[in-house]
């Protein structure tokens, strides 16, 4: 979601710059489009470009890519269907939309995999020529849905995309295969006309992407324009649609995915702390993009180390933290399991690292490209022994920036590993981001110990209880740390029973104390209390907030609290929850936050859970909350 203007009457946004349409134009305040095709059909690219065009047209946007783990499943099969859903609106929006108003299906498999999500009277645009007997069979159709009336409840628009792409490129000298691959640009052009999006940004993008292959560049642009012109002249569409710009806080914007925002948050934290950044990481879906992105920023300086495994990823980060770097590691669920022992060492030796878990659907390998929130308990408790650490979770793609920055700040201030939770939906989902001014970001103070006078490795700061950061190369501070139980102050190996309890309790107190600096917990809705509060964390922010807004518009006394700080909990959380008659906790797991809230506060909260590798639909939350209000 974009940032809404702070005051009513804030500047009206800019006008569109599209050509005046020749046909009738209708207004819509929001549209959800899903592009679906074979993995090789370029649907992600099509979706992202349509997103850019929509952002430039001034809409608020939210996206959700949905692609298979297989890079190229057999062409034309259900397993190979790749989708990209985009919600664009004149109003503030919070999700990529429950169901598409428009489904673009490039082949029968794409239709079959997605048609159930399209509401009655929804628009389905298909490439007619892709509905061959062979393709229908591969998708598991026994008849042809384009002719057997099974799609009668939808508005089906059949377009000869393949043929028209071929005509547009007639005489170009390109191979049939290269021609076929530009089909997605025809579709993008057509949809761009239909929703009056400017295509200049896509042309600019193609320019840079195919700089070295002018013939491919030319073909793509030609096909894009052919699609645009086809939309305008063909009789298929009675009108085009205008989705007027949303009211958005003035400023400089860019689209950002959660993974990009996470990477940039780390860079910003390193710059504001004046220390080099070190990322030790092993490739894993859906976390690898953070590694890719940071690998491109070496001049900051940023060290990226692609380790031999997950354990080496976190271990190298801890080694770098011992040496004074801003040290991070990025992974997803399976990698978290492998890193657990090393994270415990960082807890024990009190070294600052940030472990980013970009959650995916489990257990085991699960559904690597699909989001879930089932790593919460593991993040908080998943180490042997008493090994508490702070856990924070990002709520939206753009929020990943702030959370990454905050995670580093806490790690350094309290000399502790911090776990940052995002998920596959945030990682790959995108939204407009009001680009922050680095001068207005807070400085992160780093105090490396240099004075040998009175130095002891575990002599703590009285307020934060953090120990000094004394890095190799500092004369007079030579000391040894390790995983063995250590004596208070000196850090020397100690098996003293009382000392062990003292150290365990002190570390726990240090972590618990972090809650003292949290901002007050915000209630969206009835700040003095009401019938129902929906408590959430992480990527469920969008659907919960939208659902609560819809319920409140109907006069329901429903509110929303969203947690960024999951360990330790905010100190005011219990009191805030007790303001409400009922507490519903919506999360994409079997009820992990629910257990924590019930255990900590003895509040009789109830859960609303979904474990399908898909985000909540707004309607699902609205329905569940409505039932709770009745019962």
């Amino acid at each position, binding site marked *: 979601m974009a940032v809404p203007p702070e005051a009513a009457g804030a500047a009206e946004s800019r006008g569109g710059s599209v050509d005046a349409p020749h046909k009738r134009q209708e207004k819509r305040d929001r549209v959800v489009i899903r592009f679906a095709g074979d993995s090789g059909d370029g649907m992600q690219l099509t979706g992202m470009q349509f997103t850019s065009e929509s952002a430039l047209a001034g809409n608020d946007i939210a996206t959700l890519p949905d692609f298979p783990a297989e890079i190229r499943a057999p062409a034309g099969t259900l397993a190979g269907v790749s989708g990209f859903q985009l919600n664009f609106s004149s109003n503030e929006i919070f999700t990529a939309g429950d169901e598409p108003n428009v489904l673009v299906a490039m082949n029968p498999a794409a239709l079959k995999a997605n048609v159930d999500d399209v509401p009655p009277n929804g628009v389905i645009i298909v490439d007619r020529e892709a509905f061959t007997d062979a393709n229908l069979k591969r998708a598991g159709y026994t008849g042809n849905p384009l002719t057997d009336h099974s799609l009668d409840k939808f508005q089906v628009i059949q377009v000869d995309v393949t043929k028209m792409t071929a005509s547009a490129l007639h005489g170009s000298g390109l191979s049939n295969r290269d021609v076929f691959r530009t089909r997605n640009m025809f579709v993008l052009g057509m949809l761009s006309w239909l929703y009056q999006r400017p295509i200049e940004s896509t042309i600019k993008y193609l320019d840079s992407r195919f700089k070295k292959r002018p013939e491919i560049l030319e073909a793509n642009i030609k096909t894009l324009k052919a699609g645009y012109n086809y939309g305008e002249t063909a009789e298929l569409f009675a009108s085009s649609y205008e989705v007027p710009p949303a009211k958005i806080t003035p400023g400089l914007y860019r689209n950002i995915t959660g993974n990009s925002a996470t990477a940039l948050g780390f860079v910003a934290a390193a710059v504001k702390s004046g220390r080099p950044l070190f990322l030790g990481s092993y490739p894993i879906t859906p976390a690898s993009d953070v590694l890719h992105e940071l690998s491109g920023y070496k*001049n900051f300086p940023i060290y990226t180390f692609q380790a031999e495994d997950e354990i080496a*990823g976190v271990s190298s980060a801890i080694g770098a933290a011992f040496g004074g770097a801003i040290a991070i590691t990025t992974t997803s669920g399976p990698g978290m399991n492998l890193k657990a022992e*090393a994270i415990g060492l960082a807890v024990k030796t009190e070294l600052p690292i940030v472990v980013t878990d970009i959650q995916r659907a489990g257990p085991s390998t699960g559904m690597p490209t699909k989001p879930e929130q089932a790593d919460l308990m593991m993040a908080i408790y998943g180490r042997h022994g008493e090994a508490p650490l702070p856990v924070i979770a990002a709520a939206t793609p753009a929020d990943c920036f702030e959370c990454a920055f905050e995670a580093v700040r806490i790690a350094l201030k309290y000399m502790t590993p911090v776990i940052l939770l995002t998920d596959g939906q945030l990682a790959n989902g995108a939204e407009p981001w009001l680009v922050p001014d680095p001068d207005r970001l807070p400085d992160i103070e780093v105090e490396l110990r240099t004075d040998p006078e009175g130095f002891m490795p575990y002599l703590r700061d009285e307020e934060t209880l953090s120990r000094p950061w004394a890095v190799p190369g500092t004369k007079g501070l030579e000391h040894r740390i390790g995983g063995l139980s250590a004596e208070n102050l000196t850090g020397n190996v100690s098996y003293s029973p009382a000392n062990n309890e003292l150290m365990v309790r002190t570390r726990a107190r240090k972590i618990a104390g972090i809650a003292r600096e949290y901002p007050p917990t915000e209630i969206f809705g009835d700040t003095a209390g009401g019938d129902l509060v929906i408590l959430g964390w992480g990527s469920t922010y969008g659907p919960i907030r939208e659902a609560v807004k819809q319920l409140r518009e109907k006069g329901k006394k429903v509110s929303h609290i969203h947690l960024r700080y999951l360990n330790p909990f905010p100190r005011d959380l219990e009191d805030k929850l007790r303001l409400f008659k009922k507490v519903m906790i919506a999360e994409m797991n079997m009820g992990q936050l629910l257990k924590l809230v019930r255990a900590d506060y003895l509040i009789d909260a109830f859960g609303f859970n979904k474990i399908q590798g898909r985000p909540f639909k707004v309607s699902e939350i609205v329905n569940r909350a409505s039932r709770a209000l009745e019962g």
Partner: protein
Amino acid sequence: MATALTRKDFVSDQEVRWCPGCGDYAILAGVQKVMPEFGVPPENVVFISGIGCSSRFPYYMNTYGFHTIHGRAPAFATGLKVSRPELDVWVVTGDGDGLSIGGNHLIHVLRRNVDLKILLFNNRIYGLTKGQYSPTSEVGKVTKSTPLGSVDFPFNPLTVALGAHATFVARTVDVEQKHLGETLKRAHDHRGSSFIEILQNCNIFNDGAFNDVTDKGIKAEHQLILEHGKALIFGKNRDKGIRLNGHRPEVVALGNGVSESELIVHDESNLALAFMLGNFEAPLPTPIGVFYATSRPTYDAALNKQLADAKTKQGPGDLKKLLASGDTWTVD
């Protein structure tokens, strides 16, 4: 002017807690003795270890030290060395730590050639867990976990290191203080991953594992000291040598028509020869010394060069520019 460093500068105030008679004492003494000669002040030296008897080593050095988790010391050391290339970083590991649970990290650190000095104490037994066979124990070894004898074929640390394309591979012996010191010096002078297998006696669970190369009465007949450019000669009277018979090495008695010129001359730059020597087993003698030394860019230097080049080419990181990069638009 700085005063010269002494052994005392490297001795910590902690009581050493290995079993009396453990070979680790000798190695510790050897390292502490030779460290001052490197001229690196203690604050710039870091010892990183994993888990096991050998891995208690850092506590006894008055340098920076990090006793980490089982098998992972090379990974911790890599993160530190890459981001702080000016430090002198040592890894202390054992046959279980380095070749069993940590085998993966060991081979990868060696192939990357991170500029680390890696000391692998090989006693062919799990000591800290009180006597199970290790990945270097011989087949048939009877231990607590192999009452009928081990059926597990062992690793040879040297050929593992050579196979991973380590750029410096050596072997020495805990009680051979002079040789230990010289080997450490060679390792320290080398730029890149220096791998030293140190044959180390566990007098509690595997006493006498290396008797043939440590027993004063017989060691001269079993120890082959490698010296670059010199013929492979051993024996109390230096009357035996190693000759190639076809492609196979054999022990020959010198004299009686066999001259030194027929013997193999050690060449540290010859990987094939290093492999052959690494695979020596009875009746061939046990080689000690530098098997292989070559020069290859180190990972840490190469990565730091990329960072420096990026800065020269793009200028120092500009956060404002970075945040505002990509497709942007302005809302008025």
